[in-house]
């Protein structure tokens, strides 16, 4: 898997390179600012980009903007955005083109190395990886709204894990139930949210998107 990394702090950049290479990824380029990121992405067209939100030269949301611009140029380019803080606003912007291959995680999540690498792989494969904090905000926010009230607490829990981007197998392992039970719950969720049967993976993204866009 070919990866481009954008992180301005040398310590973290080296850590990320070491970590991803330890798990068999090839880091084709590691940059430390927004303009070089855009250049690197268009030049290498990597399988996934791991991008810090705040980058030089503006030290604002340069990384996020560069990632969004790269996705406009290379549709569907998988990008995993890392940040010291997570905002629904940014999650919404990242998911606005409704295609997968998007991750948005707190930098803290890197410390759980296995889960982090799993998230990178998921994003590279066109899936989503939303930070549990974003998902939690999303669920409290919409808890009072109609369709979500129809969900059972168990289904809500499943939706939360689904929004983070987990597979049924991963959710089953997390909740200590069988995969079949999870599949029953997800079908219940899709039914209550009015998402017609189609490719399962896509409906998962749609379910999350529906909530992001509702507010």
């Amino acid at each position, binding site marked *: 898997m070919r990866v481009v990394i954008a992180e301005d702090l040398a310590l973290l950049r080296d850590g990320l390179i070491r970590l991803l290479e330890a798990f068999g990824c090839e880091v084709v380029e590691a940059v430390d600012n*927004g*303009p070089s990121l855009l250049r690197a992405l268009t030049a290498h067209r990597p399988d996934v980009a791991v991008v810090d*939100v*705040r980058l030089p*030269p*503006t*030290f*604002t*949301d340069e990384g996020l903007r560069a990632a969004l611009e790269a996705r406009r140029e290379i549709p569907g380019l998988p990008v995993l955005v890392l940040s*010291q*803080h997570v*905002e*629904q*606003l*940014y999650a*919404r912007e990242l998911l606005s083109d409704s295609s997968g291959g998007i991750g948005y995680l707190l*930098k*803290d999540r890197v*410390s*759980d190395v296995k889960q982090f690498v799993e998230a990178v792989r998921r994003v590279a494969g066109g899936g989503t990886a939303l930070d549990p904090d974003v998902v939690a*905000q999303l669920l*409290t*926010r919409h*808890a*009072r709204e109609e369709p979500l009230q129809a969900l059972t607490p168990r289904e809500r829990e499943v939706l939360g894990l689904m929004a983070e981007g987990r597979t049924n197998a991963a959710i089953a392992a997390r909740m200590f139930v069988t995969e079949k039970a999870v599949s029953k719950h997800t079908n219940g969720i899709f039914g209550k949210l009015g998402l017609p049967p189609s490719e399962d993976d896509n409906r998962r993204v749609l379910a999350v998107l529906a909530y992001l866009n509702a*507010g």
Partner: protein
Amino acid sequence: MSERERTIDRRGGFVQRAFLNFVHGLIQILVTYLAVLPLFILTVLSILLIPLGVGIFLTPVMVTALRGVANQQRLWAEDWSGVPIQRPYRPRPSGETGPFRRLGRLLGDPATWRDLLWSLLNVPIGLVLGILGGGLTLYGLEGVFVAPLVARVADYGWGPFWTLDDWGATGYAGTVVLGAALTAVSVPVGTAAHKAHALFCRSLLAPTGGALAARVERLTETRSDTVDASAAELRRIERDLHDGAQARLVALSMNIGLAEEMLKHDPETAARLLAEAREAGGTALTELRDLVRGIHPPVLAERGLEGAVRALALSLPLPVDARIELPGRTDAPVESAAYFGVAEILANVVKHAGARRAWVQVEHDGRRLLMIVGDDGTGGADPARGTGMRGIERRLAAFDGTMAVTSPTGGPTVVTMELPCALSSPRTSPSSGTA
């Protein structure tokens, strides 16, 4: 707008300048007679009616209206003639209740009486200078184009030469020449007349020494409040770091050190210690994040007030309709005060109002940042009771900002905050040129 730009703006072309002088003069006269004079009479009447009781309620309304007109005059003096006039009024103290206190404050403010004097003197002075400023060009042009024609059909022509017929050909020629001369000088004379009027207004509408002293007193007060507040804030940050993140990081490195020792003979315990260490690291990060958010929210640094308020609106557990129109960014400290004001009020809405929806409106009218937060909750919010609202008032006061709360029992609650400040016009980030 800088002073230089203003000068250029005032110069303009001859025709444009003449037209503006005329329009400004006309507005001046109309406002003087349709607003200032009636307001003078009504204000005096309402003051006279105080012993009967009616005046107690009527006077503040009239005085406030008069202040509105005077403020408009202050703006015009600056916009039209480049004569800035500060507002001299004493600020409304927080928690002012009852009509008597309000009346006392308004009548005790010398600026009220100077406004009143201005509204009387402006009647003749505004008229004369308004006519000079606005009418000269018109009169000159009339002398050149209209008066000679009228004199042909009637025996009497209104022009610089009266009555044209008595003077024969000299009259006709004279009126055209004089009319042209008047037109030529009308622009500098008109501009000077407007300037003279602005200076006259400043002599009465600007803060006097006493008002300046009052202002210095108020500034001293808000400054000491601000210094106290920021010192307390620093103490809180120091304590939070010391007891929180710092302690956790010490525990974390202790655990890692212990795990290092255990690695050889008890790898299982080592693994457990490392897992604990990772958890402690995560908790320390969360604490640091919360602390940073309390000092200066990262999204505010990244996206400015607009992005930060939008992000805030999205993160709250109730629907918040955010309407934000900001063509630029303001200074970081003002932005921060504005953000925390909105954030605190919205936090109150979530905690106390029992509201189902809330809305935020943020806009800048060229001079002030205006923030309005409303909800459909139960109302009854009292700024005198909540420490949060007091805190906002202090924060805003450091920038001459104010807060007004209307919250009748049963709702709805609307909080209006104002912060005088300028916006930097470019919306793009400072280094976008190099990008």
